C-alpha cells in the first residue's frame, strides 16, 4: 500500500451533498412510474383482539379502487427473523401495527377513502404489555407461530454466556453493587418515511422493487421466501435512502404487501408512510430492563459482572432480538473483567415490536455498565477517571469472550478526554446556586471490522476502467447517507492515481452489483473498502503487465499518479520521483520511456492483442470467526473504542439539563476523511443526547401516544452542544489504510456520560433513561425530603 497518501485523509465533501441539498436526488418518494397505483394499509384498531369478520365489499366498489387484499387473498409465508410474523393478519391481532387489509387505487385519496369503507369486527381481548406479566404461568400465548422451544411460551429468544470463575471472583470482591436499569423505547425517525414501489411484470413474471433496504441481498431472499418466488426473479433497486440507522435491516409487512398489490394488479404500486404511520409502524430500539451486579477488589480492579436482561420483544421478532450478541460483548469485554455471567431473553408482549438501531443494544448495555462504574468508584472512594484507567483494555488483550484486540485505543481515548476536559479539576461541582455543573465519563467497545453473524460477512466489488481513463466501482455495499460512496471513490482515486471526478460508484441494483451482507455493524468502509482494494490489486496486475509491455521493460513495479502509470525505480526501492517531476515539466507529447498514460494502457488492452478488458472482481471476507455455541470467538476483524467526557449544567429550578461540552476520543484506526468522520461523530452524539435526555416513544396499553415530532422530542440543530473530537489512530493492519468502523460508536457512550454528569452535578442516582426534567425535579424533591427526615 502507498505511503504518501494524496486523497485518503483529506476533508473531501460528500460527493452527493449537492444533489441531496438541491433536491435533485431521487428518493423513493420521488419515484413515479407509468400507470402507478397507490397502496395504503388498514391497521388494527386494537392491540389485542380476535378478528371476527372483515368486509371489504364496499371498498372494492369505490370507483378508482383497483384491488383490495386480505390474508384470505394471498398465498404467502410468514416473514421476520423468526418467521413468526404473518404479512396480513387473520383471526387475531396482537399489536397496534397489525396489517389487516391493503388497498391499491388510482390516487392516494381514493385509497384512503376505501380504507374507511372496510368493516372489521373485533372481539377485544385484554392485552399483555409488561414482559413480566407475559412470563407468568397463566399468561396466554401471544405469538402462536413459535413456541415450545423455550421454558416459557412467551419467550422469543434467549442467550446465555459466561466466562471465568464467578464464585471465586465474588469472594475476591471488596464491594459488590446491584442495580436495575430501565431503558426506553426510542425510534429512528428517519428523514424519509418508509417507502416502497413495486413493479411486477406479468409477461416475464419478474418483480422489480424500489426499496430503501439496508440489506438488499438478504432482503431479496426474504422477499422471495415470503412471496414463494425465486429470489433471482426479484430485482431490488435502492433509490437514494433518506436515513437508515438500522431501521431497514428487517423486511416489514408493508413491503411484501406492496409487491402483492402489484402482482395482483399487474401495475406498479407505491406505498409511502405518513409521518404518523412512521412513528407507529416502524421499528424501535429495544426497551429493556437490565439487572446488573458488579464487583471490584479493594484496589478497584473489576472482578465480575452478572447480568440479567429482559427485553420487550413486542408481538413479533425482528433482528433486534439478536442485540444480545452485542450487549454481551460490552459486558464481557469492555474493561478487563475476569468473570462474567450473562443472561438475556426477549419476551413477547402486545406492544409494538422492536428492531435494530444504530448501536444494536450497545447504548443500553453501556448505560448500565458505565453508570455502575461510577457507583463502584463512589463506594470504593476512588476517582472516576482512575478506576476506568486502571481497568481499561489494552493492545494484545484476548478477552474472556475471545475478542482479540490487535490494536486498542481504549486507554489513549480515556486519557485524551480526561486531559482535554480537565476532568479531574471539574469533578467536584459547586454546592449552591440555581445552576449546577457536573462532568461524566464513559467508554465503549464496538465491532470495528464487521461482525460475523451471517454465513458470510463479506462484500464483493468489480472495478473497471474505460478507454477514457474513468473508473467504475461496482460495489455490493449500500449508501444510506453515511458517505461510503465518497470514501470508496477516494480509495479508488488514491490507488489508481486518477481524479475523484473520474470515479463512478454503482451500488444500487441487485442485478448488477456483487453480493454483500448489507450496511450495518459499522462495517462498510472496512469491509467494502478492503473488497475494493482487493479488486484494484488484481486489476493493477493486469494493467502493470500491459504497461510493462508498452514501456518495453520486464519490471513489474509501477506508480499510479496523475492519470499515468510510472515505472518505479526499483534499484533503490524509491519511486522515480525526480524523474517523474522532470517528465511532467516536459511536453507530455514527447514519449518518455518511464511512464505511460492509464487510458492508453486500457485502450491497448481492449483493442490490442490479446484483447482484454480492464476489469477485475474480488470478494473480501474478513478474518473474523463465527462464535461457537457458547458465544466465544473473535467475531470481528477489529474493534473500535471510544471515550466521552461530558460537562452539563443542570437548572435545579426546572430540571433542564444543558449539555455544555462533549469531549470525544475515538479509536478510528485511521482517519479516511475527516469531514465525513465529523459528520458521523456529530450526528451520533446528537442521537445520543436525545437518548439521554429527551426521546421516548410513549406507549400505553400497546398504543403509541406521541406519534409526531411535536411530542416525540427529537433534538434539533439548535440543541447541538460544543463537540470536541480527538480521533485516535491505531492503524489496524486489518483495515483499509488502517481504518476501523466508526458509524455506531459516537452514540453509544453519550447517554451514560450525560447521566453520570447529571448525577455528579446533583448527587442523585439515576438508573433510567431518558433523564427528563421531571425525573430530575422528582429526584431533587426526594433528596430534600430525605434530608429533612434525617435532620
Amino acid at each position, binding site marked *: 500500500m502507498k505511503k504518501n497518501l494524496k486523497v485518503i485523509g483529506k476533508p473531501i465533501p460528500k460527493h452527493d451533498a449537492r444533489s441531496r441539498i438541491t433536491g435533485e436526488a431521487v428518493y423513493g418518494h420521488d419515484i413515479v412510474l407509468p400507470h402507478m397505483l397507490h397502496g395504503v394499509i388498514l391497521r388494527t384498531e386494537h392491540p389485542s383482539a380476535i378478528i371476527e369478520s372483515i368486509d371489504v365489499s364496499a371498498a372494492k366498489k369505490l370507483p378508482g379502487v383497483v384491488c383490495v387484499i386480505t390474508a384470505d387473498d394471498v398465498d404467502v409465508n410468514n416473514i421476520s427473523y423468526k418467521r413468526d410474523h404473518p404479512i396480513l393478519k387473520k383471526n387475531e391481532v396482537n399489536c397496534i401495527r397489525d396489517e389487516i387489509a391493503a388497498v391499491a387505487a388510482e390516487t392516494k*385519496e381514493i385509497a384512503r377513502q376505501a380504507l374507511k369503507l372496510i368493516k372489521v369486527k373485533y372481539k377485544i381481548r385484554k392485552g399483555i404489555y409488561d414482559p413480566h406479566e407475559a412470563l407468568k404461568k397463566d399468561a396466554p400465548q401471544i405469538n402462536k407461530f413459535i413456541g415450545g422451544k423455550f421454558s416459557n411460551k412467551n419467550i422469543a429468544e434467549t442467550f446465555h454466556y459466561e466466562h471465568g470463575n464467578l464464585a471465586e471472583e465474588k469472594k475476591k470482591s471488596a464491594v459488590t453493587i446491584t442495580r436495575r436499569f430501565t431503558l426506553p423505547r426510542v425510534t429512528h425517525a428517519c428523514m424519509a418515511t418508509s417507502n416502497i414501489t413495486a413493479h411486477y411484470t406479468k409477461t416475464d413474471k419478474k418483480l422489480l422493487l424500489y426499496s430503501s433496504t439496508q440489506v438488499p441481498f438478504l432482503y431479496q431472499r426474504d422477499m422471495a421466501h415470503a412471496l414463494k418466488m425465486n429470489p433471482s426473479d426479484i430485482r431490488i433497486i435502492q433509490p437514494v435512502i433518506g436515513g437508515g440507522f438500522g431501521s431497514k435491516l428487517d423486511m416489514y409487512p408493508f413491503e411484501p404487501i406492496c409487491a402483492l398489490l402489484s402482482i395482483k394488479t399487474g401495475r406498479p404500486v407505491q406505498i409511502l408512510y405518513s409521518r404518523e404511520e412512521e412513528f407507529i409502524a416502524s421499528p424501535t430500539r429495544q426497551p429493556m430492563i437490565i439487572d446488573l451486579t458488579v464487583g471490584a477488589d479493594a484496589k478497584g480492579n473489576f472482578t465480575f459482572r452478572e447480568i440479567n436482561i429482559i427485553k420487550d420483544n413486542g408481538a413479533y421478532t425482528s433482528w433486534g432480538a439478536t442485540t444480545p450478541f452485542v450487549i454481551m460483548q460490552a459486558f464481557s469485554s469492555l474493561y478487563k473483567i475476569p468473570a462474567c455471567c450473562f443472561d438475556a431473553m426477549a419476551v413477547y408482549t402486545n406492544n409494538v415490536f422492536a428492531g435494530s438501531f444504530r448501536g444494536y443494544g450497545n447504548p443500553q448495555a453501556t448505560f448500565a455498565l458505565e453508570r455502575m462504574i461510577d457507583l463502584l468508584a463512589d463506594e470504593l472512594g476512588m476517582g472516576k477517571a482512575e478506576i476506568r484507567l486502571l481497568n481499561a483494555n489494552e493492545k494484545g488483550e484476548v478477552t474472556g469472550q475471545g475478542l482479540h484486540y490487535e490494536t486498542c485505543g481504549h486507554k489513549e481515548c480515556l486519557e485524551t478526554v480526561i486531559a482535554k476536559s480537565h476532568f479531574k479539576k471539574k469533578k467536584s461541582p459547586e454546592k449552591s446556586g*440555581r*445552576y449546577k455543573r457536573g462532568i461524566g465519563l464513559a467508554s465503549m467497545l464496538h465491532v470495528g471490522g464487521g461482525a460475523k453473524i451471517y454465513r458470510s460477512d463479506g462484500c464483493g466489488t468489480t472495478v473497471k476502467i474505460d478507454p477514457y481513463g474513468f473508473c467504475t466501482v461496482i460495489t455490493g455495499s449500500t449508501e444510506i447517507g453515511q458517505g461510503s460512496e465518497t470514501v470508496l471513490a477516494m480509495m479508488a482515486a488514491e490507488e489508481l492515481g486518477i481524479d475523484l471526478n473520474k470515479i463512478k460508484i454503482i451500488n444500487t441494483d441487485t442485478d448488477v452489483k456483487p453480493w454483500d451482507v448489507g450496511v450495518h455493524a459499522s462495517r462498510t468502509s472496512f469491509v467494502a473498502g478492503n473488497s475494493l482494494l482487493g479488486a484494484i490489486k488484481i486489476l493493477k496486475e493486469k494493467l502493470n503487465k500491459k504497461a510493462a509491455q508498452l514501456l518495453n521493460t520486464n519490471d513489474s513495479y509501477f506508480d499510479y499518479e496523475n492519470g499515468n502509470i510510472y515505472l518505479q525505480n526499483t534499484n533503490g526501492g524509491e519511486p522515480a520521483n525526480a524523474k517523474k517531476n522532470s517528465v511532467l515539466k516536459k511536453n507530455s507529447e514527447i514519449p518518455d520511456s518511464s511512464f505511460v498514460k492509464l487510458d492508453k494502457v486500457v485502450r491497448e488492452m481492449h483493442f490490442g492483442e490479446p484483447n482484454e478488458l480492464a476489469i477485475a472482481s474480488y470478494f473480501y471476507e474478513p478474518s473474523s470467526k463465527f462464535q461457537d455455541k457458547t458465544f466465544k470467538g473473535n467475531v470481528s476483524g477489529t474493534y473500535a473504542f471510544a471515550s466521552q467526557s461530558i460537562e452539563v*449544567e443542570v*437548572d435545579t*429550578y*426546572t*430540571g*433542564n439539563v*444543558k449539555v455544555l461540552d462533549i469531549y470525544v476520543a475515538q479509536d478510528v484506526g485511521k482517519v479516511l476523511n475527516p469531514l465525513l468522520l465529523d459528520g458521523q461523530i456529530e450526528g451520533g452524539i446528537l442521537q445520543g443526547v436525545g437518548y439521554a*435526555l*429527551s426521546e421516548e416513544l*410513549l406507549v400505553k396499553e400497546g398504543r403509541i*401516544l*406521541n406519534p409526531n*415530532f*411535536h*411530542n416525540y*422530542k427529537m*433534538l*434539533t*440543530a*439548535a*440543541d447541538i452542544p460544543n463537540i470536541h473530537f480527538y480521533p485516535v489512530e491505531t492503524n489496524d493492519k486489518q483495515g483499509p489504510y488502517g481504518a476501523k468502523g466508526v458509524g455506531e460508536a459516537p452514540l453509544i457512550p453519550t447517554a451514560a456520560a450525560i447521566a453520570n454528569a447529571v448525577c455528579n452535578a446533583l448527587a442523585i442516582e439515576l438508573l433510567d433513561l431518558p433523564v*427528563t*426534567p*421531571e425525573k430530575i*425535579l422528582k429526584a431533587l*424533591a426526594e433528596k430534600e425530603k430525605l434530608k429533612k427526615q434525617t435532620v
Partner: protein
Amino acid sequence: MDFNIITPVTVKELLGTMKKFQKKKFRFGAGCTDLLMELKRNPEENLTVINLSRVKDPLFTGIKKSAAGFRFGAMLTAHKIMVNEEIRNNFKVLHEAAESLASTQIRQVATVGGNVCTASPSGDMACALVALEADCEILGITGKKGMVPITGFFTGVRKTVLKKNELLCGIFVPAKNKKSKNIYSGFVKIGTRQSMECSVVSLAYHIQADAGGKIIHAGVAIGSSAPTIRFAEDAAHYLVGKKFENISVNERKEFAARVLTYATPIDDLRATAWYRKEVLFNISKAIFENDAKNSR
C-alpha cells in the same frame, strides 16, 4: 385535507368575501401554521379558507406608535415582531416571546393574530400580550371596529369571543406609565428543545418602576398552566409599591405562591401538573434573582 382557498387583497374584498360566506363553512388562514395542523387532525368537508396573507393594508400589516401606545396589525409575523427595534426596546417580553416561537422558518409565516386567535394556552406571543394588558382590535363585517381587552378575548381552550362575522385586525399595547423609568420585562419559556418547542409552562412579566426603583405597575401572565393564558392580577398587585431590587426571599416566595393560584394545570404527555406547578413557582420567584432567565 381538502379545501377551497379565496385570497382577497383589499379590506373591501375581504369584507365582501366574509359576507358571501356567512351561511357557509369558512376559516381564516393567516400563516396557516396552526390551521393546517388542525385541519389535518380534523378534516372538514366543503370548507373554504379565507387567506389573509395577501391583504395589503396597514390595518393588518402596519406598526404605529402614538402617545397612547403601540398598535400593530394582526398579520405581522413573529419574525417581524422579533426584529422590531421599538418592540425590543419597550416590550422585551413580546420580543422574547416572538424569538422563542418555533423556528426561523415558522417565524417567517406565523402571525401574531394567528397566535392570539388560535387561543392556545401555550401561545407564546399571546402570553406576552396578556402580560402587557393589550387590547384586541376587532373588525366587523360592516367595517365597524371594536376593542376587547385580551384577557376577555379568550373564553376557553381554542375559544375566543370572535363571532363568525368578525376578525382580529390589530393589537394595541398601551404605552408605559409616564413615571416608569425602569422596566423589568421578560418571557420565560420552559420546554425540552431549544427550537420547535411548545411550552410546558411559560411566564411573561412586564414590570415598571419609577426612577427610584419602586414598582408602579406590573403585568404577569402564565401559559400552559390553565385552559387559557391567565393574567395573574393578584401577584402583579402584590408587587406594586415594592422596590424591585429589594424584594426579599420571602416576598419572592409570596409572589410565586400568588402566581400559582392562577394555575390549574393538567397532566399530559409533556409534563405532569405537579411538575408544572413546581416549575412555575421556581421561575416566578426567579424573576427577582440575577439569573432570572432559564438557562436553556
